[in-house]
Each structure stands twice: as structure tokens, then as C-alpha cells.
């Protein structure tokens, strides 16, 4: 019986027929709210959006403070600073990089590369200063941790800026834009929280799968440092002379694989028959973590300077460039390595093996580069 009666009553009940006073009140309220929504609907929507955004901002602020506290705690624990590191950390968390002018883009990459080098050195020396007792590995991990704090701080400041601006101007579209990107921003912030924990403890992260694969090829071989923070080893791989490289671990490092590849190619006078790059790549929603794909091109993320160098060098000598990627989400890439990703190591190595067999001859010299952050992964 009841569902039908309820529906009928809900639709018609208040509008007439009944004499009850409550029915009249409710119908008046309905009319009133109808008119209210016609005239102030957008305002009401604006308020609810602002309310939602303010909740997210509180959460972001909490995350930012938590990460900062974790960073300070880790610095005090490892670095045993004599003076309070808080003020210097505060200034590092506001640090910025002004990208070079791109009105005339030719030759912008070396300029950007130079700025990044300077920034890197500055971060490293500052971290060394606030953590004098830390060793090289720990300095690298702390540097990564400071970078995470900086990223969270920047996210918080930008989101707060648009929130306050929208509130001040009551601009529906300003707040709407914030509302639109907020879920993705929050996802990224949560991933950064996970990253901060991994960096504080020195645990391998999902992005480290490239170096992890290459590190397995390096076991027992003679290693040398070819460039800043990049380790290279020579090994036999399916009858080919493989030069394998990865960022130096177990400190948190991505190194400069572009410079390393360039140097190896120059050392071999361009006589390289193929370059294979192994990297973690962003999966689409719905795809499985740890799936492996192969393709063509420079598999390397970041701002683009390293990619540029590798592309330039390989095209100069017409060296084919192959990519093997291991799929993972943005969260998985910067939080402790999942088992699925670790399990992909052997499969990816097999894929590299067949790729090398199909595309080069025995006795050839090839380069295999494991791209990614080598935190928690030695060689």
C-alpha cells in the first residue's frame, strides 16, 4: 500500500485538499523555498562550495603542519643540529624557482638545467647545514623530505589563495574552478603525506622500480660514478655488452641520467646499438598496478631537461630509443613500494631481455637505464 500513498501525498498532499494547518505551513514553505532558489540559488551553491573548500583547506593545513613536524623531528633525530632548524626549514619551505623567459625558447633547456643545478646545490648545502651529523645517504633523504614539505606548503598556499580570493570577490566561477580541481589536489596531498613517511624512513617508493630492476643487473659488477649521482656498471646481457645505469642509492636521488647517457654515448663514440629506458609511468584509472608496457621514446618524467638531452643525443647518432614502463598511480609512485610493483621486476626484466634480443645483435653495446628515485635501493 504505502509507497504509492506516500508518493501521492508527497506530491499533492500539501497543495490542497487537506485542511490541516501543518499541510498549509509545509506548502507555504515549499513555495517560499522555490522562490528562494530561483533568486538565490547560485549564492546558496557558492556558500556550500566555500564551506566544502574551507574543510579541505583545514585538512591541507593539518597535513602541511604534520609533514613539517615530521621533517623537523627527523632532522633533529638524524642531524643533531646545534641550533634550532625550524627557522631555516621555514625559509626552505617558501623557496621558489623562477623559470627562464620563454619568449625566445631556443636554448632554454641549458638555462633551466643550470637553474635546477643551482637549486639542487642550494637545497643540499642548506640541509647539510641544518643536519650536520647526517651522512650522504641521510642528507639525500632529508632533502627529499624537505621537498615534500615544500610541495605541501605550496599546495596549501595556492588553494588558500583562490579560496580567499573567491570569498572576497564572491565570484562563483573562481570558486567553481577551485571546487573542480580540489579532489585531485587532495589526492596529491594525501600521496605526499605517504611520501613524507617513506622519505623519513628511507623506504623504497613505487617510482624506484626502474633503479630496482637495473640494480639487479648490477649485482657483483664493478660500479663507477659517471655523473653527479649516477652509477654505471658494465655487464653481459644476452650476449650483448650492456652498460647499465641508475641513480645512486640508497639515498633519495633521481640523478642526471641525461648527462650520463650523453657521456656514455660520447665515450663509445656513438657506437651504441640501442638505448632501453625503464621507468614507472602513470596508469589510467581502471588499469592494473604493476602492468608492463613497451614503447618508443625517452621514458623519463620531470621537468624535461633530462629527456631533452637523451633525445638530442640519441637522434644525433641515430640510436633507437626504447621504453619499458611499469604502470602505477600517482599515489603508488611516491608511497612505499607495493608488492605488485616489486613483483613486476622479473617480468619487466624478461621484457627487456626479449626487446634486446629482437633489436640488437650479439656483441653489440647497449645502454639500459633505470629511471626513477633510488631511495632505499642500493646497487
Amino acid at each position: 500500500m504505502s509507497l504509492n500513498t506516500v508518493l501521492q501525498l508527497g506530491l499533492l498532499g500539501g497543495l490542497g485538499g487537506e485542511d490541516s494547518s501543518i499541510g498549509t505551513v509545509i506548502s507555504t514553505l515549499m513555495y517560499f523555498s522555490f522562490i528562494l532558489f530561483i533568486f538565490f540559488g547560485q549564492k546558496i551553491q557558492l556558500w556550500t562550495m566555500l564551506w566544502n573548500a574551507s574543510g579541505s583547506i583545514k585538512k591541507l593545513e593539518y597535513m602541511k603542519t604534520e609533514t613539517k613536524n615530521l621533517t623537523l623531528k627527523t632532522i633533529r633525530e638524524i642531524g643533531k643540529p646545534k641550533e634550532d632548524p625550524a627557522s631555516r626549514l621555514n625559509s626552505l619551505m617558501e623557496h621558489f624557482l623562477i623559470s627562464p623567459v620563454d619568449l625566445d625558447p631556443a636554448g632554454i633547456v641549458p638555462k633551466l638545467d643550470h637553474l635546477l643545478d643551482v637549486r639542487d646545490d642550494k637545497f643540499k648545502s642548506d640541509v647539510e647545514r641544518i643536519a650536520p651529523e647526517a651522512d650522504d645517504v641521510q642528507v639525500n633523504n632529508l632533502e627529499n623530505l624537505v621537498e615534500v614539505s615544500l610541495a605541501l606548503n605550496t599546495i596549501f598556499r595556492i588553494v588558500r589563495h583562490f579560496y580567499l580570493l573567491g570569498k572576497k570577490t564572491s565570484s562563483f566561477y573562481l570558486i567553481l574552478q577551485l571546487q573542480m580541481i580540489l579532489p585531485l589536489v587532495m589526492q596529491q596531498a594525501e600521496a605526499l603525506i605517504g611520501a613524507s613517511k617513506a622519505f623519513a624512513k628511507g623506504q623504497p617508493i613505487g617510482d624506484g622500480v626502474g633503479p630496482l630492476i637495473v640494480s639487479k643487473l648490477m649485482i657483483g659488477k664493478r660500479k663507477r660514478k659517471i655523473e653527479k649521482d649516477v652509477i654505471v656498471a658494465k655487464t653481459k646481457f644476452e650476449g650483448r655488452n650492456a652498460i647499465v645505469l641508475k641513480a645512486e642509492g640508497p639515498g633519495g636521488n633521481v640523478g642526471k641520467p641525461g648527462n650520463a647517457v650523453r657521456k656514455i654515448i660520447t665515450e663509445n663514440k656513438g657506437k651504441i646499438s640501442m638505448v632501453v629506458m625503464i621507468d614507472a609511468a602513470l596508469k589510467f584509472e581502471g588499469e592494473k598496478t604493476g602492468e608492463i608496457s613497451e614503447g618508443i621514446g625517452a621514458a623519463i618524467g620531470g621537468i624535461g631537461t633530462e629527456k631533452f638531452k637523451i633525445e638530442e643525443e640519441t637522434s644525433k647518432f641515430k640510436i633507437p630509443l626504447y621504453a619499458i614502463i611499469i604502470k602505477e598511480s600517482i599515489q603508488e609512485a611516491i608511497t612505499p613500494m607495493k608488492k605488485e610493483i616489486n613483483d613486476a621486476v622479473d617480468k619487466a626484466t624478461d621484457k627487456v631481455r626479449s626487446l634486446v634480443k629482437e633489436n640488437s645483435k650479439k656483441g653489440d653495446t647497449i645502454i639500459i637505464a633505470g629511471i626513477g628515485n633510488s631511495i632505499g635501493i642500493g646497487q
Partner: protein
Amino acid sequence: MDRERGRTYFYIVALFSMGILIYSFYILYNSLTSYQEGQTENLYIGIVVAIIGIGLAFSSLTTLRKRAIMLKEMEKKVLAVEFCDKCSFKKVRLFEKGDYVNKKIGKCTQCNSELSINAIYLEDKKEPDKSPQRVSTSQPSSLTITVCSA
């Protein structure tokens, strides 16, 4: 102890929301029966109150569920696998500070060759516990599982 308190709070809120949910349905039912007896006002009030109650209870239950999933994620532990290349001796234990993949950690207890850390990863709770390396998380200090094929 903090985690313990969080859990109690969690259960209290869950119980409370369930109570509200059940009570809302009760009100709805009551107002419908009273409508059949001819009391229209009760129906309106009943429906409005019940809808508000059900809505609130559902929203609080869904946030609780989200939080439970998040807590479960956060409780996951990072494991380190000690492995001997020669005899395939394998030991899974909790990650300790200073561990890293390919770190040499001494001699293998089975064959006396080099033992090193072979992998470090986040434990996978979805995995069925049928594998020989049974991981018990209830006693972290005794979390060592040894498998030796030799």
C-alpha cells in the same frame, strides 16, 4: 593507547548512527500506520524527521567507512625480504631503519654465503595466507618467517 581510544570512539559513533537509522525507520513506520488511522499531520512530521534522520545516519556511516579504509591502509607494514642467492634461503621481516635493497647483511645461516636484502615492499593484506611465508602481524617482534628450499 591512542589507537585504542580512536577505535572505541569509532565504535561508539558507528553504534549511534545505527541507532538513529533504526529509529528513523521506526518513526517512518509509525507515521504510516497513524496515517492509515487518519492522522495526516503525523505523517508529514514523521516523513520529514525520518528522512533527516536516515540522511544523517547514512552520511556519518559512509564517512566512518572511508576512515576505516584509510586506517587499514595506514596500518600496513613495510616488509624486508632477506634472501640468499645460493640456497634460496628466504626470510621476511619488518623493515628497519637503515635497510635498503641490495644491502649485505652478513652470512646465510644455511650455507654461509652472502645474505642480502632482496626486496622491500608494503605488505599485501589481500593476499591469501596460504603461501608458505605466513606473515603474522599480531606480534611484530617475532615477525620472522623462514623458508629454505635447500
